[in-house]
C-alpha cells in the first residue's frame, strides 16, 4: 500500500488543462521538500507523459504514488496504443497532430526525455491502451 496516492484525469486534445496534473504533482513534491533537481526530473517526465496522453490518446489517468523512498507516476490511457514502441523511443520520431505541433509539441522528444529523466520506465501498449510506469528513487 502506497504512503500517498492521487489520481488525475487527462482529457484528449484539451491543450488548456493539459499539464495541470503535473503542476499539482510538482506542488506536492515541493511541499514535501524533496531535492530540487529530483523534483525537476519528476515534473518534466510527468508533464511530457501528460502532454503525450492529451496529444495521442483518447484520454486516461495519471496516478501519482509515494511509496517509501520511491515515487511512481503511472500514466494509463484507453487507446489507441503505440504502434511501434522502439520507433517512439527514437529522438525525432513523432506522429503528433497539426494541432499539437501548432502549440510547440510533436518534436519527437517526449518518450526519450521521460526515459532520460526517470530512474526506470516501463511501457506496455496495445490497441486497448498504453501504460507508462515511471519510477524515481529518492536518494
Amino acid at each position, binding site marked *: 500500500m502506497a504512503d500517498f496516492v492521487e489520481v488525475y484525469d487527462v482529457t484528449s486534445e484539451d491543450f488548456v488543462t493539459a499539464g495541470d496534473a503535473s*503542476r499539482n504533482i510538482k506542488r506536492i513534491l515541493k511541499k514535501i521538500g524533496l531535492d530540487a533537481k529530483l523534483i525537476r526530473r519528476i*515534473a518534466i517526465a510527468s508533464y511530457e507523459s501528460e502532454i503525450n496522453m492529451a496529444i495521442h490518446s483518447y484520454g486516461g489517468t495519471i496516478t501519482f504514488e509515494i511509496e517509501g523512498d520511491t515515487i511512481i507516476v503511472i500514466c494509463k490511457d484507453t487507446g489507441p496504443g503505440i504502434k511501434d514502441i522502439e520507433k517512439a523511443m527514437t529522438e525525432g520520431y513523432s506522429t503528433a497532430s497539426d494541432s499539437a505541433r501548432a502549440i510547440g509539441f510533436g518534436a519527437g522528444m517526449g518518450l526519450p526525455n521521460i526515459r532520460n529523466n526517470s530512474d526506470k520506465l516501463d511501457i506496455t501498449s496495445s490497441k486497448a491502451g498504453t501504460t507508462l510506469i515511471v519510477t524515481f528513487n529518492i536518494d
Partner: protein
Amino acid sequence: MKVSEIRDILDAKLLCGQDKLDLDILSACGSDLMSDLLAFVKDSCVLLTGQTNFQVIKTAEMLDVECIIFVRGKIPTKEVCDLAKEVGMTLLQTDKTLYAACGLLYVEGLEPCERGDF
C-alpha cells in the same frame, strides 16, 4: 545577466514580474518547440519563444524557468499572463525576431543553454 539588462538589450516591454528585474540569468534558450525546451533547458535560464499559449508557461514552470521573452511582437492573452503571475514568472515582450533577439543576447555574453544533465 540581469532581467533588466535583457529588457534593455532587446528594447523589450515588461508584461509582468516587476519584482524580478534584478534576477540573475545564467543562460538562454530560444525555440518554439516546447519538446526541445523540455529536453535542453537548465536552471536559471531564460526562454525566448514565439509561442504564447498556456503550455509555454506550464513548460517553463516544470523547468523552474523564471523568465520568458516573447519575440516577433507576440502578446499572450490576459489569461496566460495571469497564469504566469500566479507562479511568479516574469514575462517580457519584444518586436525582434527569435534569431535577432538570441543574437543580441549572445553577443552581450549570455551563454547558450546546453542539454541538461540527467
